[in-house]
């Protein structure tokens, strides 16, 4: 009994100190816009772009860190590795722009 209690307490303690579970944040790509154009995320989260357009797009980091192809009616994703403000655009249609604020 005592062992069990210790076990529960240890598990609770472990949960409390663990970082929040990684999330997947969806961004719609529709009619040449990323919606929402600005998202807030944490390191470890995944950004998933869902392309509803009849054209291929990309999500390309301004700092060239990543370049994600998003084929028509498909999704593209990246996992955020570090904090900061990331600006991105579509290489094919540079009038499409978005931003991700990543908290450590």
């Amino acid at each position, binding site marked *: 009994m005592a062992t069990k209690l210790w076990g529960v307490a240890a598990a609770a303690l472990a949960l409390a100190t663990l970082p929040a579970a990684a999330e997947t944040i969806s961004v719609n790509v529709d*009619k*040449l816009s990323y919606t929402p154009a600005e998202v807030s995320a944490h390191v470890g989260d995944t950004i998933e772009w869902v392309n509803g357009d009849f*054209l*291929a797009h990309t999500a390309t980091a301004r700092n060239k860190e990543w370049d994600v192809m998003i084929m*028509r009616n498909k999704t593209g994703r990246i996992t955020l590795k570090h904090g900061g403000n990331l600006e991105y655009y579509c*290489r*094919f249609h540079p*009038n499409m722009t978005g931003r991700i604020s990543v908290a450590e």
Partner: protein
Amino acid sequence: MLLRIIAASAALMLGPAFAMAQGAKPNDAQIAHIAYTADQIDIGAAKLALQKSKNKEVRAFAQDMVRDHTAVNQKALALLKKLNVKPEDNDTSKSLSQQAKATAASLKKLNGAAFDKAYADNEVEYHKTVNGALENTLIPSANNPELKELLQTGLKIFQGHQQHADQVAKSL
């Protein structure tokens, strides 16, 4: 300098074709034909670039143009079928095609870096002209809401192409 003049005159040639459309308000069947023709012209120019250019940026841009304009035209044709509208040839489309032939003829005479620069400059001007026509004539004249919406999406796509072409032209 000569190149610049060739590129500028090729681009200028497209001006009057769209100016004609501003006089009389085109109907949906004519608008569809003009938009389709404008798309086909850009696909033709891109195919010429893929034949002639060895520049990585220019070739990638040309491939983007073939892919996007083909997708737009497929979408447009599907919509016209659904709406039971048959594209109607008209003076604006005819004059666009004639001028595109002249532009292609002057581009064909160029090679290497001279071709790349003239093609990229012409793409900037061509998209600028088409976007002006979409904004000022074709979109306001379109009656059917679905056609209007597709033209509005087309405008955003081609504004993107204009910026992309501008980046390519400046990189050369």
